């Protein structure tokens, strides 16, 4: 086996391997800047939705459309997946590669469950409720905002899935650790955005 710069000289992983190198620390700072930008992006989509949510163009309104038990199930799944990614990071801090991969795997499976619910929901709306992308200003704003979040979930699943593969190929090192940490932050951020979506889109849609 060849030794690379990725492995610490002592052969032991530092306590917080994601912050052990300058590159790792820069990655975290850079990722926070990205998340600040994502906040602005979702902020503009929320603003558009809030401005247009009453414009139903004689199509279905939010109150007629939304089914809260389904939204509650999606919320619960995403919240649990945020907790499992916390457990993944704690396994990483213990230096346990297999437990880390397992918790990330559970996170990915829960993410797939969330995505399945969302696809089912959109299918129901388009096919059975005649609520398509071009039905009304409300429908366009709804699909753009919620669909954008769903696309983030899909990207996160792909990303974390690839990182699990890399953990088995390259092991847990000071190079792979920041990638794991940053993807877990991304996953928490997706959960944070969902908190605003279920509040602003679904619950406020039911209230009026």
């Amino acid at each position, binding site marked *: 086996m060849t030794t690379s710069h990725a492995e*610490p*000289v*002592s052969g032991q992983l*530092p*306590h*917080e391997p994601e*912050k*052990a*190198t*300058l590159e790792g*620390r820069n990655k975290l*700072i850079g990722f*926070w*800047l990205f*998340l*600040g*930008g*994502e*906040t*602005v992006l*979702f*902020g*503009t989509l*929320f*603003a*558009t939705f*809030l*401005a247009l949510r009453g414009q139903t163009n004689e199509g279905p309104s939010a109150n007629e459309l939304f089914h*809260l038990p389904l939204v*509650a199930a999606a*919320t*619960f799944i995403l*919240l*649990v997946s*945020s*907790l499992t990614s*916390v*457990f993944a990071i*704690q396994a990483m*801090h*213990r230096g346990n590669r297999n437990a880390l991969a397992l918790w990330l795997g559970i996170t990915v499976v829960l993410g797939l469950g969330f995505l399945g619910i969302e696809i089912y929901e959109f299918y129901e709306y388009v096919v059975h409720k005649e609520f398509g992308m071009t039905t009304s200003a409300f429908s366009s704003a709804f699909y753009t905002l919620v669909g954008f979040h769903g696309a983030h979930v899909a990207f996160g699943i792909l990303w974390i899935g690839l990182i699990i593969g890399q953990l088995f190929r390259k092991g847990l090192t000071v190079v792979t650790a920041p990638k794991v940490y940053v993807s877990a*932050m991304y996953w*928490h*951020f997706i*959960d*944070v955005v969902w*908190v*605003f979506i*279920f*509040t*602003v889109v679904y*619950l*406020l849609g*039911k*209230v*009026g």
Partner: protein
Amino acid sequence: MSVQDKSDQQPVKHRHRTEGPQKHVVVFIFSIILTLIAFAAVKAGGVNTSFTIILLVVMAILQVFVQLGYWMHMKDKGHLMPILFMAFGFFVAFTCIIMALYWVWW
């Protein structure tokens, strides 16, 4: 440990202790309770629409603060830049939302 190894690490003043899962499970239960309050308030309905809306928004903001603080570690030391980035992001986002709520249908 070689010199190269030391120079590559952050200075650690105290001995590092690995944190347990308890704190994060508490945050999780807190988030579940806030979510249940929000859903229950809408399910019950009828009370007062503007009160319900304020309650929903407060529940959401509380949950986001707790998750950003504990799960994303923003409350930990050395997070000044992340706080600045996120605060500026939320500032621009809320400006857009105020604009959409009050100016679009002036």
